[in-house]
């Protein structure tokens, strides 16, 4: 009989902070500029240049630490991690080893198996490296230092996770907290959130951990789940074959669905960490911590409770809407204008989710303005447009953020409330469809639906369906 194995997982999560400027110089952190447009002597490691810490980085790191129940290290330091690589202009990365800014935190996650705390070993601040571009045609490499010096925090968890579901729940929780703080947009596909998975397996009930591997290059939740499953199987197979797991760093290839070894522990470099003499220790006073605390936003659980209480939303709605900060913001901003919370919630949970899914987008990529959604809801509410027109107009808002008032006006989509005109049209349709009239009279209620549809078609969808129904019934009951 085969043995049962337990998977033990710890995560190292890198998050790019949303500061306007880099961690040690005044260069912009904006994504997507021309190569080396956002560089200066400091972030390109020119001789004689010196780093000066961006205070906002400390604020964000502290805010994330407080929100994840960490102890804040009030006297912390930066250390140099020394290694040679062309994307690292000084050949050392400024990071924190000896005195990281946050320690000993935890976050609560919920999976099908219930609630559970995941421990956070530490959070430290560091600078990102540049990007190498290999030109195989010219057989050379180019380096872009725009990303060099972009601030990162690395969140190191305890090895407390036991399944891919727990890993995803933990990452979603972190992402939500950090997005709510505004400390990062946490986009896995753009690299503003990156997770390395440390995984080992052991026989169920064993006291000691097995040998772990570290998995890199995981660019989506799906890739993370697949990589965890794959690595778990790989390690169990090795053990079952009587072989041992090698402590190594592996790279996941999501297209091929497998990982390969990048470097083993034996090749591990000695980073020769030591305190960076160019930077003074970071001292975080009690007052500063209080100030950061006082600015902490409302997190998801509080927000959810408030939506139920203040706006009378069903729990189901509140749960979905607060899952993304962008969605919650959209809900509140739209509701503030149109004062119709349930209608707003319906649009966000229904049409919005449907369109996002069709476009293969995440809710934080929503780009229309709450004003336009509010206007649309009011147009539908006061009977200016009917429900089917509203749906079409919303699609336009979702895609192009058009002004619905203008759009309805320009495209003549206003609901037709001219009863006399409508009556004439319906008379015509009834005359043309004797079979349907017959069916209706024989008790087939469905037949009226066909006649309504025909009327809508004839009026270009602008007629008020309530009025059509009313007139139809009058004519048919003659």
């Amino acid at each position, binding site marked *: 009989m085969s043995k049962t194995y337990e998977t033990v997982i710890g995560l190292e999560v890198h998050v790019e902070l949303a500061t306007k400027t880099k961690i040690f110089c005044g260069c912009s952190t904006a994504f997507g500029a021309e190569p080396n447009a956002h560089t200066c002597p400091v972030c390109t490691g020119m001789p004689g240049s010196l780093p000066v810490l961006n205070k906002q980085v400390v604020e964000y790191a502290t805010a994330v630490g407080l929100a994840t129940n960490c102890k804040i290290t009030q006297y912390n330091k930066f250390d140099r991690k*020394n290694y040679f690589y062309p994307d690292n202009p000084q050949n050392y990365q400024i990071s924190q080893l000896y005195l990281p800014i946050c320690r000993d935190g935890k976050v609560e996650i919920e999976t099908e198996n219930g609630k559970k705390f995941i421990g956070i070993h530490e959070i430290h601040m560091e600078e990102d490296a540049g990007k190498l571009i290999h030109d195989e045609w010219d057989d050379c490499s180019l380096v872009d230092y725009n990303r060099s010096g972009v601030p990162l925090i690395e969140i190191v968890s305890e090895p407390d996770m036991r399944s891919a579901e727990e890993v995803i729940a933990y990452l979603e929780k972190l992402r939500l907290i950090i997005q709510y703080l505004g400390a990062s947009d946490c986009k896995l596909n753009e690299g503003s959130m990156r997770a390395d998975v440390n995984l080992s397996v052991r026989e169920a009930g064993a006291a000691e951990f097995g040998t772990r591997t570290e998995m890199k290059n995981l660019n989506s939740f799906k890739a993370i789940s697949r990589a965890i499953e794959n690595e778990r199987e790989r390690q169990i197979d090795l053990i079952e074959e009587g072989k041992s797991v090698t402590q190594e760093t592996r790279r996941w290839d999501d297209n091929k669905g497998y990982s390969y070894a990048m470097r083993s522990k034996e090749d591990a470099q000695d980073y020769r960490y030591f305190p960076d*003499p160019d930077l003074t220790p970071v001292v975080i006073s009690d007052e500063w911590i209080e100030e950061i605390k006082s600015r902490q936003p409302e997190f998801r659980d509080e927000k959810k409770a408030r939506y139920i209480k203040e706006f009378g939303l069903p729990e189901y709605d509140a749960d979905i809407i607060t899952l993304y900060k962008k969605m919650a913001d959209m809900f509140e901003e739209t509701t503030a204008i149109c004062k119709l919370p349930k209608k707003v919630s319906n649009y966000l949970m229904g049409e919005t989710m449907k369109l996002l899914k069709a476009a293969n987008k995440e809710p934080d990529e929503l780009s229309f303005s709450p004003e336009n959604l509010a206007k649309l809801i009011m147009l539908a509410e006061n009977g200016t447009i009917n429900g089917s027109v509203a749906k079409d107009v919303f699609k336009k808002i979702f895609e192009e953020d058009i002004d619905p008032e203008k759009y309805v006006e320009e495209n003549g989509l206003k609901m037709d409330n001219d009863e006399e005109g409508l009556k004439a049209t319906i008379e015509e349709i009834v005359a043309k469809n004797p079979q349907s009239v017959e069916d209706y009279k024989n008790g087939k209620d469905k037949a009226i639906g066909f006649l309504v549809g025909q009327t809508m078609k004839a009026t270009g969808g602008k007629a008020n369906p309530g009025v059509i129904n009313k007139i139809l019934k009058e004519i048919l009951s003659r």
Partner: protein
Amino acid sequence: MSILDYTATTLAAKIKAGEISAIEATKAVLEQIEKTEELYNCYVTIDKDGALKQAEEIQSKIESGELVSPLAGVPVAIKDNICTEGMLTTCSSKILGNFVPTFSAEVVENLKKAGAVIIGKTNMDEFAMGSTTETSAYGVTRNPKNPEHVPGGSSGGSAAAVAANECFYALGSDTGGSIRQPAGYCGVVGMKPTYSTVSRYGLIAYGSSLDQIGPLCKDVTDCATILDIISSHDTKDSTSVGKKTDYTKALVNDVKGMKIGIPRDYFGDGLDSEVKKAVLNAAKVLESRGAILEEFDLGLVEYAIPAYYTIAAAEASSNLERFDGIKYGYRTEEFSDLHNMYKKTRSEGFGAEVKRRIMLGSFVLSSGYYDAYYLKALKVKALIKKAFDDAFSKYDVILGPVAPTTAPKLGESLSDPIKMYLGDIYTISINLAGLPAISLPCGIASNGLPIGLQLIGDCYKENNIIQTAYTYEQAGKED
């Protein structure tokens, strides 16, 4: 009296008064360079045309009253590890043989604002590692007092340029004595200010926690005047404090009641008897002017050298990693892959002393040795600071020699690096403790070479040592 004999402040006063122009002063220096530079090799780069052009611009600004600084129009030389925009900055290393900075160091900006005429960049020990200016990739500098001898180092080019009248004053950098020791060997005045007083932005780092830029000049008045101009609070340097002090206020010929401590540890074995006599004689002169002398035991002196070479080498091993052939500077001509390129570039680009310190520094930082070496050295550093704190609770100034001997002969030192390191014994504790200290001439030995006197002050108490040094200097003129 030739123009060249003027001190920097006297020259500036004469330029201001219209007796001499900045152009004449610059030409005088350039003519002197023509005559003596071939022998002394003080400079790595001489910017003749640039200097004359600057002199003309500055002269017109002085005439229009736009420039009123006390050093406006005076030619200056800059150590070659201080970045000068558009002007070669090599650190006297092959690896930076073609490096032209895109920005100027904060000190250079400060000097430019004060109307300095930059003559060129002075020779030094490669990356400031050495005590003789013999480790330069661009030839040795000779001591103008006797060309068979070294000028000291690492700011040997700056000290020699001042001593040879190839400039009126110069900037150096001091990590373990690199301003004070060459000043002592060449018979000029040199000062290392309190760590954090002068911005390090644009100084190519050797030991970042110890490096400090300072003046090399003809007398104490110049020293205080230059310090006024170069010290500033610079937000680009996180370690810059830039307490604004008026250093020229301390140019007072009076030491009555000044308490001067004389550490017995600085006068023991290894100190040349002539040097000892001259330094103690200087103490007596100060006593005769009203200073109160007292001998005391400073302690820990024997631990300063190992602590210093551990910390400085550790920082250097990391600071010098950026010289890799990727972005600027020297790159080896042929290589097989990235790591081979790194290896060959750095093997060919760095000299022996630099490699020795990179290896030493990499070793003391390696995992498993960090606690035993680097961390222990930091503890020693803290203890040394404490020993000085205790001393300064009793004394205003500590007096001692700059170096155990006068300038050694060329070629004598490099064969025995440990002996060379031991030569730094009186200067390096001051860097470890972050203190200010001045070196000034206090006599000539029987071999004809100058002897240096060192006055050490408490942190940010430059004015105590300036006042003491000024009084001693004036006493020499009176006697």
